[in-house]
């Protein structure tokens, strides 16, 4: 396909868009903190997997005629382990089955090992116009703790290569690691700002059930910063990146103005998205109804089903109006921009007041956690920092 020049999204600022997510479930090793659908396999038959992804795209294209794709995202697992030809074939097939927004954003998650970084040119050639690097930390001890395969030196090399091949790139950092102090984290953020282009994702380390960290943490092998310090680290992150011109547009995502990840905005703005590949989720609106799709999770199961049935959909479930409202608010309040009233009307046929407990809203606005005006419902900085509690109080 012709290479798409990376430009900032030009569609209406708050349009949710229509996104396609492609899941590549394989990793060279499993990181101890990760609870994503990732698997380690000795060998992957790229041809079979390529064919299956294309087949599943065809299946969903038939269900979503007339839509214009605003973003594609290759996630995983480790999609930088895909052959560029596989990536290219997927992008081409999407272009054949749907129309593409001229400003389409095509992102790929990449690990910063030297092997993968040297494929960047190939991904660029296949049509990818943005990479998101799993840097996670900028010192070797932390990377070792996090079970990463790369060194800090390799990370710097990968960022350099990404900058050479892509106009837009982002990288992830994980903070609130054991032993981290406000001072050391600020220094790491400063270093990251020196390396960043226009986007950074900064996640607090959380212990997820079923991960290796869950076992180690329960056993007392390491201690995480307490709630107080975690709160201070979060506040430091917000203030420091904001002062550097990269405020958070979402709880853990920071960008220069106009450089937000268009794909992820679709999730948070509760737009429609197709999910293909093992364990991928989707949200599709058809005849005014919202459907949640979920693909078979185990890679081999998914592959066999696609080859037998033309798709690996495990479940298509109606999202009832109450759940739909809850999902939209839960996702939308993660964004600094909040949720425009128009979205409540378009998506739910309701005003925000119809969903919200007025007494709770009174307490939350008075407390400075939420604002509701003629234009939109939004969580303040303080509100987003405590969003779980805000949502539990706000939603009836």
């Amino acid at each position, binding site marked *: 396909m012709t290479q798409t020049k990376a430009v900032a999204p030009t569609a209406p600022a708050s349009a949710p868009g229509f996104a396609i997510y492609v899941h590549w479930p394989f990793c060279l090793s499993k990181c101890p903190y990760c609870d994503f659908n990732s698997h380690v396999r000795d060998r992957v038959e790229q041809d079979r997997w390529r064919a299956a992804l294309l087949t599943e795209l065809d299946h969903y294209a038939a269900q979503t005629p007339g839509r214009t794709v605003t973003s594609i995202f290759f996630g995983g697992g480790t999609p930088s382990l895909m052959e560029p030809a596989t990536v290219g074939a997927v992008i081409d097939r999407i272009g054949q089955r749907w129309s593409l927004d001229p400003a389409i954003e095509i992102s790929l998650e990449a690990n910063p090992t030297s092997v993968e970084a040297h494929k960047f040119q190939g991904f660029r050639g296949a049509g990818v116009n943005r990479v998101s690097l799993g840097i996670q930390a900028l010192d070797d001890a932390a990377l070792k703790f996090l079970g990463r395969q790369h060194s800090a030196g390799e990370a710097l090399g990968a960022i350099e290569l990404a900058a050479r091949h892509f106009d837009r790139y982002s990288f992830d950092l994980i903070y609130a690691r054991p032993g981290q102090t406000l001072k050391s984290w600020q220094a790491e953020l400063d270093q990251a700002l020196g390396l960043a282009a226009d986007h950074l994702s900064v996640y607090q380390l959380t212990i997820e059930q079923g991960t290796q960290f869950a076992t180690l943490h329960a056993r007392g092998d390491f201690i995480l910063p307490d709630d107080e310090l975690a709160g201070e680290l979060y506040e430091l992150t917000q203030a420091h990146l904001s002062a550097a011109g990269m405020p958070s547009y979402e709880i853990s995502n920071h960008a220069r103005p106009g450089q937000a990840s268009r794909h992820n905005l679709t999730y948070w703005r509760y737009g429609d998205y197709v999910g293909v590949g093992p364990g991928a989720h989707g949200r599709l609106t058809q005849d005014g109804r919202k459907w949640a799709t979920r693909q078979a999770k185990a890679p081999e199961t998914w592959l066999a089903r696609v080859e037998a049935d033309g798709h690996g959909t495990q479940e298509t479930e109606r999202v009832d109006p109450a759940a739909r409202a809850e999902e939209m608010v839960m996702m939308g309040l993660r964004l600094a921009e909040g949720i425009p009233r128009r979205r409540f009307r378009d998506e739910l046929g309701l005003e925000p007041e119809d969903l919200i407990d007025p007494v709770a809203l009174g307490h939350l606005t008075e407390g400075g956690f939420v604002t509701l005006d003629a234009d939109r419902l939004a969580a303040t900085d303080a509100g987003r920092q*405590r969003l779980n509690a805000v949502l539990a109080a706000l939603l009836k």
Partner: protein
Amino acid sequence: MTDLSHIRNFSIVAHIDHGKSTLADRLIQHCGGLEAREMREQVLDSMDIERERGITIKAQTVRLTYKANDGQTYTLNLMDTPGHVDFAYEVSRSLAACEGSLLVVDASQGVEAQTLANVYQAMDAGHEIVPVLNKIDLPAAEPERIKRQIEDVIGLDASDAVEISAKTGLNIDKVLEALVARLPAPKGDAEAPLKALLVDSWYDAYLGVMILVRVRDGVLKSGMKIRMMNSNAMHTVERVGFFTPKAVLTGVLSPGEIGFITAGIKAVADTNVGDTITEERRPAAEPLPGFKPSVPVVFCGLFPVDANDYEHLRDSIAKLRLNDASFAAEAETSAALGFGFRVGCLGLLHLEIIQERLEREFNLDLITTAPSVVYHVYLNNGEMMQLHNPVDMPDPVKVERIEEPWIKATILVPDEYLGTILALCTERRGIQVDLTYAGNRAMLVYKLPLNEVVFDFYDRLKSVSRGYASFDYQIDHYEEGDLVVMNILVNHEPVDALGTIVHRSQADYRGRALVARLKDLIPPQLFQIAIQAALGGRVIARETVRAMRKDVLAKCYGGDISRKRKLLDKQKEGKKRMRQFGKVEIPQSAFLAALKMHDD
């Protein structure tokens, strides 16, 4: 009908764990009341809760047939009585049905406070008392020392005490011989009008209410029309018999005999322990002396943990009352805990038993509020109200004075713990009445406000004496006290379930303890939470739960939505168990844990 001279009626007086039930088992076995295959431990304690706690709640009776060394056959009626102070009145009626008692004392542990109280009651009932030293087979047994102690402390001649091991069966025959030889035969006139003591009653799912009786005069027969002389209720006797402990129908009970009757009675509440049963056609002139209606002394709120269980709790209380009429219950509403009942019981143990039976037999999960005693509130207009719920306290300006119940407590303790026990009693406003020594043990008699005892006295007593102190009490008198309602406020709103009546001198200490405890139990929320203890409008203790600093999922993308929504739904579901106080919601579990603070 047995000849009066060949009947012996006896009860067993013992401290908990000194072997009363095991001795009863052996006596039954020795006399062949049950085949070996029918025996199980503590056969007389039929309720699970009795067997597990090693206590007797309901009186039970067994008729034993014993061929004595004199070649004659005797009928021995064993009355197994409840041993706890809460059931003091029931105990007194059981004792009134007998002529003598076995005093069972652990040969290494010696006399305990409960033993004392019960043996004095038996002496008051005019009993002949046979001391029995149990667990004589244990290496720690010191029979001579314990005999001296019985003589010193109780003032009872223990020189011919029977030394036994109920566990191995050693000398059980000597106990039986002592009963025959030393206890008096009952007296009674078979020709006189019927006079029978209502000893106890319980509900049987098949037979309805069963009444345990001791016939004094006259003959009780099936088909007879009877009248309860105090309640004036009339019934027709259906079944008449005795227990071996299996029920045996005889159709008749004669003077001196102990047995049971059924009379088509539906609820235990229709039978009053201590009442006198007479014949309708030919009534006795006077009832037996000593009847007292049962009066609850300790009250608390019982609330279902799950508000949906209220109806079930209501039905369960009604069913339990069929079986135990000695507790009172009325509906109560709490802003913090929802709908429930105010329950009045004979004492703290009784309260625990009621709660445990409701939870166990009716599968309920309950919250109990702090127990309260019955206060006499004298109003300026001359009226007196009985107050057993702090929320009912009238406006202080209308109150002239408040009186609270005091108890006379007996505490037996090894002297090394005496100092800490004295300090505890003083801290609880106790007034020493007596302090005497028997060997290395001190016997303390104190007057104490019951209010201080129901708070956590018993637990503290056990903990400061490492379990060596024993304690018993009886209600003594009412006395004016400087009593105030202490409210707990959460964000300036009172939590009704945590309100208590305290003596002004105790308010600071209790208030500080409670708010500190609540502070640790209430999770941080969006808003800071003020927890205060207040007397009227005056705050005496305050703690603050700081607002939460951060509570957000770091990562939430497309794939996560369904899972995260389910987490949110779960959180919302959890809110149903929260109570709203202004801007904050307090989990019910925090109140629950605060109410349990006396367990520590």
